[in-house]
Each structure stands twice: as C-alpha cells, then as structure tokens.
C-alpha cells in the first residue's frame, strides 16, 4: 500500500445505476446494504473491487454494485474468481451467490476454492430454496420439503454449508443472517481482512418461495432463544434472559440453565482457532439447539494460494533469471543446416 491518501467513500458510492430487481421484501436487499457499507470502509479503492457471482437470484448481486463485476455461469463463480485473483492479486474479490449455485451445481468449485485458500470472499446467501427457477428444493432444504419438483416431499438430506467449509479446509468460516445488517457488515469486513478464503453463510429469507424459513433465528422475538452468538474467548450463553448456556458433554454438547447447578465457568468457551470445536458447533441444529451465529473458525497461519503462487514465481525468477525467449525457443539440442 502506498501512502497516498485514499478516497473516502460513502455506501451510496457503491450503488450502481441499475434498478434492483429482487422481489420486494427479499433478504438480499439487506445484504446489499451491508455490502455497500462494508465496501465504503474496507480500504481498497472502488476500482479494485470485483464482485463475482454464478446464477440465481443472489447472483444478480454484481449488477447492483458500482464496481467491476462479473455475473458468470451456474456454479462456476469460484473458478472465475480464482482466475481473477491469480491474474491480479491486488484486487479485492467478493463472490456472492446462493445455496443452489455454490453447493449444488458448484459444490465442487466451492470445495476447491476453500481447500486452496485462495484470497477471495465467499458470501453464500442461503435461502434453502431455488428462487429463480420458481421454488424447487435446494441442497440445504430440509428433508420432506414439498415443492413443485418434490410434491411428496424431498428425500435428500440437506448439506450443511459450515460443516462443508470446515471440512474443505476453510480458514475463515462464519455465519450471519440477512436482517442483521450491522453484524453482517462487520463480519464481511472481518472476512475481507482475512488473508485466504473467507466463507460466510447468510441465512436469507426468500419471501416468495420459502418465506419465514429462518424466522426462528432472525426475528427479534425468537432470535435470543434460537441462536447463540459466537464471540472469541467468551462462554456460549443464550436465551431471552441470558440464562442458558452450552456445555461440553462427552463427545457432544448439552444445554444447561445457568443458576445453582451451572455457572458460566462450566460452559464451553468459544475458541476460533479450535477446528474440532468449530465442527461440533456446526452440528447444532434448531430446534434441539440454538444455532451459532458468528465466526466458527479462523486459521491465519495458512498462506493463501495466490501468495504462494507469486512467491513461487518470484523464486523461479530469482533462481533462473527472467525468461530469455529466444533461448527458450532455440532449446539445447540444435543442429545447423548449411
């Protein structure tokens, strides 16, 4: 970074001239608001932002940001974003797409972006449904989901994005939800500052095809009972009265009520560097457990793919010198015809 004073932005500087075409009331609007706020304060210049997406409602996202953007094809945004990053590592790349795009048709690419730890930021808008194709069940839909394509209920077990990200070697794995614009803004900001892939699952309401599916976790009246905030070094406490906690119990966890029998000292303390614990927390499901919101896991020690790539190129240039094209073309095994 140079010492030249960076321009200061307001969120609206990042709004493109395009009319936003999501359904009124869609959870995506809140994410867009959060994203623009985040972008205004993150640091890079506007021209250094690139928004990439696949296909789906969420994938329209790049059109609404006044930055460089690419609305690619179904499922392949992680690969496109990877190409952009290795071409120009100075760029700040955000990949915004949905659960169908990133976990179904694009599951493979999501997994590989995570394991490579390429320095991009993936924001997965999870509404547990296919919206753009008008309401089929998605890879995160619950078993038994009745949709046009599954009139007798879906049979497949849902995929857990957080567990998948952890298992794939993700180095920044977090969860948030659409209406928490403030929390989302700071979480994406934190993810963007992380060197390596940041992966944020956002509970997002599709108010047309899967309305209220996340309301247990996102609405003010039920949030406290059904979610637990993950804060580094703090015990896992939740509930309207902050009277419940999560305690380790053998290989798993249990909910305890704070009071005579259990105190805060008995509770699980969140440790963002503990992969096993992050995995355990990713397996907490409503309604048996409150669902964790926040950063599950961070590993700052792993270098990003792009850093390693450029390090390798640098080392080769150091050892071999800059390429001599004529020498390369000529090779080492020649003969002369008189």
């Amino acid at each position: 970074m140079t010492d030249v004073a960076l321009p200061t932005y307001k969120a609206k500087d990042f709004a493109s001239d395009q009319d936003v075409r999501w359904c009124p009331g869609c959870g995506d609007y809140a994410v867009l608001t959060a994203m623009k706020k985040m972008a205004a304060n993150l640091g890079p210049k506007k021209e250094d932002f690139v928004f990439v997406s696949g296909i789906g409602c969420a994938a329209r996202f790049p059109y609404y940001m006044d930055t460089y953007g690419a609305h690619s094809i179904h499922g392949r945004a992680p690969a496109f974003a990877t190409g952009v990053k290795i071409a120009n590592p100075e760029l700040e790349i955000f990949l915004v797409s949905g659960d169908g795009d990133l976990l179904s048709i694009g599951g493979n690419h999501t997994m590989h972006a995570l394991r490579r730890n390429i320095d991009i930021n993936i924001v997965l808008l999870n509404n547990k449904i296919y919206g753009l194709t008008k309401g089929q069940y998605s890879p995160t839909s619950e078993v038994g989901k009745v949709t046009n394509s599954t009139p007798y209920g879906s049979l497949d077990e849902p995929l857990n994005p957080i567990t998948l990200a952890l298992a794939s070697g993700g180095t920044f794995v977090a969860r948030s939800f659409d209406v928490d614009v403030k929390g989302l803004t700071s979480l994406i900001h934190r993810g963007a500052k992380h060197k390596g892939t940041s992966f944020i699952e956002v509970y997002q309401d599709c108010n047309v095809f899967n309305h209220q599916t996340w309301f247990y976790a996102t609405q003010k009246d039920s949030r406290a009972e059904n979610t637990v905030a993950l804060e580094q070094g703090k015990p896992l406490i939740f509930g309207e009265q902050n009277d419940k906690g999560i305690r380790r119990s053998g290989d798993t966890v249990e909910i305890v009520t704070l009071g005579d029998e259990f105190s805060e000292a008995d509770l699980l303390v969140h440790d963002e560097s503990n992969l096993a614990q992050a995995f355990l927390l990713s397996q907490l499901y409503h309604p048996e457990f409150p669902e964790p919101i926040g950063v599950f896991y961070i590993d700052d020690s792993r270098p990003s793919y792009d850093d390693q790539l450029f390090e390798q190129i640098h080392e080769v240039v150091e050892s071999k010198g800059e390429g001599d094209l004529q020498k390369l073309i000529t090779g080492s095994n020649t003969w002369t015809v008189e």
Partner: protein
Amino acid sequence: MTATEIPPESTTNPSDDAKVKVLPSVSVRFCGDSGDGMQLTGSHFTDEVALAGNDFSTAPDFPAEIRAPRGTTFGVSGYQVQFASSEIHTPGDLVNALVAMNPAGFKTNLEYVEPGGIVIVNEDEFTKSNLKKCGYEDGYNPLDDEVINASYKICKVPMSRLTRESLVREEEDISVKDIDRCRNMFALGIISWLYSREIDSTIAKLQHYFGKIKNKPEIAALNERAIKAGYYFGETAEFFPSQYEVAPAKLKAGEYRRISGNEAIVLGLTTASTKMHTPLVYASYPITPASDVLHGLARLKQFEIRTFQAEDEIAAVMIAIGASFAGLLGVTGTSGPGLALKSEAIGLAVMMELPLIVVNIQRAGPSTGMPTKTEQSDLLQTMFGRPGECPVIVVAASSPGNCFHMAIEAVRLSVRAMCPVIFLSEGGLGNAAEPWLIPDISTIPDIVVKRPAVTDEDYLPYKRDAVTGGRPWATPGTPGLEHRVGGLEKQDGTGDVSYDHENHALMTKYRAEKITKLQEVIPEIEVAGDSDTLILGWGGTRGSILTATTMLQERDINVATAHLHYINPFPKNLGEVLKQYKTIIIPEMNSGQLAMLIRSKFLVDATSICNLHGRSFFADELANEIEVAMNGGEA
C-alpha cells in the same frame, strides 16, 4: 513412403564398405513393452538422424494403459520415425525396419512392415510363456513360421543374452535388472549401425542424463556399453544383407531443432504472451493428449506464466476467462471430451466478449474413445457445440512446427476481435516431431493490445471498434471504467442487461460480424499445382496429402492442393477458389465434417475421403482413394 533402393554409385557413398546402400528415405518402428523404453529409444534415434542432416517425421503409438501387464498386446508401445534425404511430411506408411523387443510387439506391429522388410526381434523374449501371454497358440512360435519368414527378413537376435554378456563385469556389482534395462540401447546400437548413424551424440546424452542429472554414472556407463555392443554386433555379425545410408536432406539453411506439436504450442503461447506484453494464465485439467502443454508451461514461471491445474475442465476454462476479465491472456487446453464440458463457459466468454484461447488437441472419440489415438472429429463440435448462436474463431495447425505459428495467430485474432478462439491440434500432431527451423523472435511482430484510457469519457463497455468490431478491454483496477459483464444478453453500447428483441438480433449479428471482419487480417488460401481437381485439407492431414500428391504425380496424375489453417472465418477468397475446380476432394480424419461445412457454405459439391482408423492417413492409401474419387468412385 516405401524405400526404393538407389545404386550406391549414384550418390556419395559415406563408407568404404561397398555393401552400404544409399536410400532416399527409411522408416523404422521400435516396439516393445511400455516399460521397455521404446519412446526414449526412438527419440534418441531421431536425434541421430537429425544430426546427420536428414529431414524426419516421427509418431509415437502408445497405449492408454501406463503399465499394462508385461508382455500383453495391449501394453505395447511403439515409436515410428521416417528420415529422408529430401523433404518429407509423414512418419511413413509401412516401415522398412521393425525392432520388436518382445512377442507382443511383434504380433501387433508386423502389419506395419513393408513386404520383405527387416524385422529385428529380441529372440530371447520369445519364450513359451511370453508367446502364450500375447495369445499365440500353444507350441507355435511365429519366428519359425514359414510364411512369415518368406514375407519378411526376420533377424533373430538374442538381445537379452548379448546385453547381459556385454555388460556384466566380474568386478562390478550390478543388478540384472539394471542390465536388462539397457536392452533398448543395445537395439538402438544395432539400428544405428544398420542405417549408418553416429552414436556419439546419444552416448553424450546418456552420460549427461544418467551421469549428471540423475547422478548415476554407473548406469550411464552401462547404457554406453549397451549401445556400443549393439553397434558392434551389427558391424560384425553379418546378420544383415547390407548397411544403409540416407544422405542429408537439402533443407533451408539455418539452425534447427526437433519439435513436437505440443512443444510448439508451449513456445507459441509463450511467444504470444511476450509479444503482447501480457502475462499468460494457463488453466487446465489433465487430459490425454493435451497434458504436455500444461507440463511445458508449468516450467516457464520465469516468463511470468501462471499455470493452474484446476479441479475439472469447467473450472479450468472459467479460471482462464476470469484471468482474461482481469486483463491477462487466459488460455485453457483440453481434448474433445473436455471441450464438451467447457462449452457453456466458452459461450460466457462469447457473451462477455473477452479474449480466450481454448486449445483442443483432438483424439479419437466419441466419449472416452481412444485417448492416445488421433482424429479430427471435433470440428463441428468446435464450430457449433454451444447453446445459442455462439460463434467462435477457429484455427487449425497443420504440422508440429506449424502449431507454433497458429498459437500466435490464435492469440492475435482473439485479442483483436475480443472473442474466444478454439485452436485445433490433433494427438497425431501433438506427439509427432519434425525438424523445425528456429525462428528469430525479433521478426515476430508485437500483438497490439489497446486498453481504454482512464480519461476516456466516451467509454462504454460494449462500444465497438469500428474496424475490428471488438469491444474495449477495460480491466479491474482501472479507475472510472467500472462495469459489469455476464452471460445475460447485453444492451448494445452500455452492456447493461437487455431483453429487448431488436437488440438481441443486433448483438447476435455483431458477435458474428466481428469474426467475419478477421478475413481482412488473415492470409488468403493458396493453391499449389495445376489441375481441375482440388484436394482441400485442414489440420494434420497436410503431410499425408502432400505425400499422396507426390505419389500421384509419379503416376502422372496431377491434382491441385490447398490447406485450411483458418476455419472460422474461412479465408476471404475460399469461395472464389473453390468455384474454379471441377472436382473438390476433402480428405479428413472424421466422417466428412469439413465437407459438410464447405457444401453448406459454398454450395459446391465436395467428395469426402474419410479416415476413421484413429491414425493418420497412410499416404499410399490416400493416393489410391484420391485416384478412385477422381474416377467418379470407380477403382
């Protein structure tokens, strides 16, 4: 080509030995188990003929199985080389000499030997169990077969025993395994003597490789002893009717190297990247026969080349498109099945109007088909295999060395039109090798990239260049030019999403037109020869067509030939040229795909000659088929 003997007195005799016969050309095939080192043996021999000043052409023939069970017919690996005292274009049809290291190689390769040809076998490997392994009947040994012995000059050499006897030293502790591994060098020694090629350069290379690089001087010494032993064996055994010589070819003066098609692509892409002052991103998924391009480029990081082994074919092309979006030269490489997987993404690049090079080294299909065998059957897939009206630029290389030039052309056209190029090569070109006059890089023109300026107030993402029809290539990081691209239809000029009917028709027209405009910057097609019959070819059939044409001339049949390197767009004058001929014959290694294009585009009748054997045309077979076609189908 079949070698014809020329009396020794007609040319310079390099040896005092009167038994040396001079031949205009010779083809040799080495075959054996895939672990026998046949590719290496053939490669060393090719270097020897190159140093002797011959023109040459090689073709490997190997199985898809890496190490099939030893001694089986499906584990046989072969390498054919033709070398000549004049210009040649193919590795030859039937060979003058075959070296078979085992019965399986003998069994599968005997059909490639000319009648009366020399067949040198490692007799020691023709054991009862080995013969059984490759399916010979119990009690039968083909080396004792009277018909076979009458048809070929079978030379039974106990190579295993001779190699052991000449390599074992009492004072040395060398494993039998290491000694047996040198049998291929013993065989190379025999062939080198038979065709009067120097072995010094091969010895130097063995010393360098085993001695210096692998730090195993003892193995280098073994190999040296083996090749010398084979050479002296040839000299003293009086096994062969004669020793042969092929005089140097009169090639254009200059410095040469050997090059395969895949090596030429690596060098061509690297040159293009240098000439456009833009780093190259090559993303690929391993696939036969294209992987060598990835391997080659991966070693060139000192040229700022970024290679990426992607998780699949689709990711590979998307990474390349992402790189192009970011302003670099995005390239991906694959073969037919991979091209099918990439088709949707290529459509994205067509919509985004970005440069993209897709190298397709065709193999025999459909589906997995025959990965190590060659074909030209992806032409129509390349032209049309995408959803929607989705034209791309299509170029095709005609020889290993030509891959260099066409790779540069692919980049030049892609950048100019802001449009993907599919660059067609073939397995047969990718792995084949020929002498290559090393180009002077300073004579290759720059590839000019015009990037819109920050200050361009009229900038619009889809505002086209009046001459080229391409849109401006504004790249992330440039202030003030922020824009969004994607697969949805674009509004002319602004590039905003548009569902307008008139606009869609207009944009469809623009996307096709900018490719047609390239006709102004590609060479017109040239015709060689005078006849009312035109042989029109494309891609890797060029060598077979030229050789067949020469054969026809020897039969007093004249044909004109023309070869297409640009398929979309076709050269501007192609239609006019085709009209001048009474008969148009199109030989291709598919069921008539170019013929279909030519017929539909120019409404001319064209006769197809189709080869679907998964190998190149034999020139002799092609000449015969052309003759038949000229007679209206009558033999």
